[in-house]
C-alpha cells in the first residue's frame, strides 16, 4: 500500500540541532498537539461536520441523507428529496464532511444562474465553506470552491478552464436539466471527471424512464446497464420493481411525510370549467382550421393554438395572427380573418371569471401560474378592473427585481401572476393559495410550482386549484399528466398530490 510521508519535519529538526534555526515555544507546542487531538477523525463512519457548524441545526432526514450518501453510496448520488426539504443543506453537509476529512480540496457547483448567489451565501454563512460565484475572468485556479451557472460552464472558454482544474467533487443543482443526453450541457457534464458527485433534483423523472437512465449513466455509467440492456429490460415496465431497487442504490429521496415534521395539508383540486357558447364556437373553429389550410396542419402549432384558446384570446390572437400571415390563398386568409374577428369579439373569458371567483373566495394572497405572457398581462388588467392588486413575476427578472416583486407581493398586492420560468428559486411560504391557470405537460412543473409555497415554514394548509376546461385539449393534458405521474411513482416512488386529492 502507498505510504505518503514528508521529510519536512526531519529537515527542520536537523536545522535546530545544528543551531541554524531557533527552537519553538513550549506552550504552542502543547497547544498544537491538543488541537490535533481534538480534531482527530477517529472513525471511518459517522459525520464530523455537524460539530463544526454552530449556526446550523440540520434536520434528522438531512443528516441521515448525508450519512447514507457518504457511507453507502460512496459519495456519488442523486439527492431527490421532494421540493422544500433542504437538498442544498444535505449537499452542504456532504461537501463539508469531505472537506474536513481531506478527501475533497476543490469542488465545482453548477446551478441555474438565478440560484448562484443563494448557493454562495448558504455555503459561506451556514457551512463556512469559502465558495465564490464565477464571473467572467474569475481566476478559478485560485479558488477551491466555485459556483457557476450551467450555461456559462458549457461554453468556451469557461469549459476549457474547468477542464484544466482537477475537481474532486461536482455538485449539480436542478439536475433534471440534464435529462436530455443530446444537449451540450449533458455532454459537458459527461466529460467532467466525477470522483465525488451529487445531482440535485426533486424531479428525476419528468416524462419517461429513459431520463432516469441518462441521469444515472452520468453519475455511474453502467449502473442501469448500457442503453440496449436497459431498453430490453425496463422499457416495458414489467420489471419496474427491480428498477426501483437499482435506483434506490444511487438515490436518496425523502418525502415530506417521512421527515417526522408536521406538514400542513395540501388540498388539491381540479376545477372543471365550461366554455360559454361563444367561446366554444371559436374553439371549434380553431380546431377546424387544420381542414382549411395547410398552414394549420402541423400538430404542434394546432396544440399550441388550442392551449392558448383555453388561456385567453390575447394569447391566441398573437399566434393566430402570425400564422395568418403565412397563408397565401385569398380564401384561406378570409376564413382566418373571420375566426380572428369572432375571437376578438368575445366578451367573456370563463376561465378568468372562475379564477376571479376563487381569489374572492380565498380572500387571501394567491399565486397564479400561467404559461403565456399575453395571458399574464391580461390577467393583471382584468383583476385591476375588479379592484384586485397584482404583481407580475417571471424568470427573466434579475435577483434584485425578484426580491423587490416578492416584497411587493408580501406587503401590498393580493395576487402574484407568474409565468412558468418564475417557478424556480423563489420561496413564498406566506402565501397559501396557488391557481394553475394553465396546465403544463410536465407534472414535475406542477410539483415545482406548488413547492414554492408548500415547503418548510408553511404554517397553513395549502390550496391548489388546477383549472381545466371541459371538452378541450386540457382534458387530454390531464390524462397525460396522470399517466406520467404513474411512471414516476413506479420507478422513483410516491409523489405528493399535485393534480387532485383523492
Amino acid at each position: 500500500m502507498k505510504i505518503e510521508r514528508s521529510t519536512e519535519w526531519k529537515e527542520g529538526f536537523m536545522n535546530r540541532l545544528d543551531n541554524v534555526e531557533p527552537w519553538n515555544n513550549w506552550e504552542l507546542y502543547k497547544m498544537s498537539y491538543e488541537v490535533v487531538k481534538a480534531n482527530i477523525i477517529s472513525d471511518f463512519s459517522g459525520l464530523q461536520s455537524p460539530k463544526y457548524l454552530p449556526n446550523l441545526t440540520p434536520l434528522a432526514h438531512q443528516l441521515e441523507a448525508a450519512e447514507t450518501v457518504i457511507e453507502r453510496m460512496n459519495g456519488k448520488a442523486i439527492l431527490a428529496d421532494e421540493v422544500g426539504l433542504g437538498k442544498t443543506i444535505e449537499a452542504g453537509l456532504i461537501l463539508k464532511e469531505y472537506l474536513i476529512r481531506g478527501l475533497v480540496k476543490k469542488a465545482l457547483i453548477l446551478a441555474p444562474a438565478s440560484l448562484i448567489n443563494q448557493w454562495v451565501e448558504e455555503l459561506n454563512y451556514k457551512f463556512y465553506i469559502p465558495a465564490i460565484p464565477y464571473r467572467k475572468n474569475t481566476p478559478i485556479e485560485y479558488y477551491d470552491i466555485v459556483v457557476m451557472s450551467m450555461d456559462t460552464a458549457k461554453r468556451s472558454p469557461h469549459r476549457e478552464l474547468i477542464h484544466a482544474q482537477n475537481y474532486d467533487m461536482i455538485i449539480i443543482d436542478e439536475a433534471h436539466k440534464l435529462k436530455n443526453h443530446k444537449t451540450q450541457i449533458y455532454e459537458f457534464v459527461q466529460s467532467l471527471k466525477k470522483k465525488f458527485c451529487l445531482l440535485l433534483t426533486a424531479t428525476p423523472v419528468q416524462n419517461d424512464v429513459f431520463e432516469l437512465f441518462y441521469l444515472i449513466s452520468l453519475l455511474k455509467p453502467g449502473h442501469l446497464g448500457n442503453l440496449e440492456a436497459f431498453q430490453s429490460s425496463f422499457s416495458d415496465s414489467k420489471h419496474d420493481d427491480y428498477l426501483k431497487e437499482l435506483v434506490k442504490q444511487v438515490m436518496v429521496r425523502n418525502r415530506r411525510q417521512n421527515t417526522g415534521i408536521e406538514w400542513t395539508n395540501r388540498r388539491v383540486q381540479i376545477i372543471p370549467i365550461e366554455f360559454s357558447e361563444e367561446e366554444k364556437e371559436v374553439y371549434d373553429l380553431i380546431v377546424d382550421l387544420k381542414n382549411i389550410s395547410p398552414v394549420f396542419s402541423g400538430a404542434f402549432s394546432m396544440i399550441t393554438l388550442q392551449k392558448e384558446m383555453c388561456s385567453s384570446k390575447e394569447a391566441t390572437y398573437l399566434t393566430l395572427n402570425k400564422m395568418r400571415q403565412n397563408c397565401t390563398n385569398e380564401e384561406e386568409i378570409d376564413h382566418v380573418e373571420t375566426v380572428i374577428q369572432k375571437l376578438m369579439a368575445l366578451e367573456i373569458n370563463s376561465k378568468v371569471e372562475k379564477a376571479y371567483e376563487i381569489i374572492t373566495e380565498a380572500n387571501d394572497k394567491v399565486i397564479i401560474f400561467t404559461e403565456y405572457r399575453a395571458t399574464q398581462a391580461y390577467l393583471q388588467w382584468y383583476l385591476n378592473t375588479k379592484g384586485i392588486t397584482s404583481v407580475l413575476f417571471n424568470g427573466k427578472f434579475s435577483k434584485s427585481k425578484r426580491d423587490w416583486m416578492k416584497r411587493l407581493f408580501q406587503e401590498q398586492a393580493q395576487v402574484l401572476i407568474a409565468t412558468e420560468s418564475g417557478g424556480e428559486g423563489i420561496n413564498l411560504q406566506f402565501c397559501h393559495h396557488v391557481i394553475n391557470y394553465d396546465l403544463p405537460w410536465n407534472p414535475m412543473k406542477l410539483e415545482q410550482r406548488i413547492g414554492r409555497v408548500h415547503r418548510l415554514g408553511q404554517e397553513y394548509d395549502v390550496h391548489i386549484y388546477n383549472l381545466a376546461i371541459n371538452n378541450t385539449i386540457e382534458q387530454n393534458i390531464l390524462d397525460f399528466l396522470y399517466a406520467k405521474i404513474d411512471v414516476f411513482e413506479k420507478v422513483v416512488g410516491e409523489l405528493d398530490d399535485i393534480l387532485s386529492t383523492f
Partner: protein
Amino acid sequence: MYPQQVHKYLSVFFKETSCQILSNHPDYITVQLTIDMDKKIMNRPFYWRNIESTGGVPNPALLNLITDQNKLGADVKGEVVHFGSPRLNRLFQTTKELGAFVLMYERVLGKGEAQTILTPWLGVNYKVSYYSDQTMEMLYSFGINLITGIVREDFQESLHEVNLETYQSKHTFNLPFIIKPVRGLERLDKIIEQIIEQDDHLWAEEAKGRWQKDQDILEYFYEGMENKPECYEMEKQAMKEQYEARIKIEIINGGLFYMK
C-alpha cells in the same frame, strides 16, 4: 471545542505570540496583532508588500474576537470565532508552525553541589491517516531514550507530570547522546510503520471491493465497444482517485527533552 475552550485557546495563543490583549472579557477578546502575526493570520500579502515597498507606516490589525455570541448583547461588534471557523483554522495552522520543534529541560531544584544527571529523550507526535473514499486518523506519541533506546508510548501525556523549562537548571549535567537524535527518529518512524503493518486493513480491502464493483459496472456499460470514448478512461481514473487506499504519516511536532 466549546466556546470556553476556544476562548482559553485564543488567550494563550495571543499571549504566547506576544500580541497585546487589550481586553479579555469572558465572551470576547480584543487583541492588537504584532506585525509578524498580522502577516501570518490576516492573509493580506498585498498590503504588506505595498507597505514594505513604499516604506509606509505599518498598521497591524486590531481584532475583536467573539467567542460566545449567545451571551453577548448586540452592542459588541466583532468577528465570531468558533470551532470550524476559518479564522480559528488559520490560528491552528499557525500554532502548528510555531510549535513544531522544542528543546526542554526538566527543572531541578539545586541542593548543594550534587549534580543531577539528565537523560536525553526524543519525543515525536505522529498523525497517521488512512484514506480511501473514507478516512480515519490516529494519533501516536512516542518518546525514545537516546541513551538506552527504550521507547515510551503516550509520551506527550506523560510529560504533564514533568516540570519542563526552556533552560537548563543549575547543577544538572546532560548525558551526551549514545543514539543520535536523527537515528532515534528513524527508529520511531520504524515503529510507526510496524504498527501500520500489523494493523487490520479490512478498510482497504473493503474499499477495493467497492472499487471493483464500480469498475465492473463501468465495464458492463462499455462492453463490446471497440473504441471506448475518452470518458471511459476518465471514469476509471476517477475511481482510482476515489477508492485507492493510501496511508499518510505526518509528524505534528517533536523535540528533545532532558529529564531525570
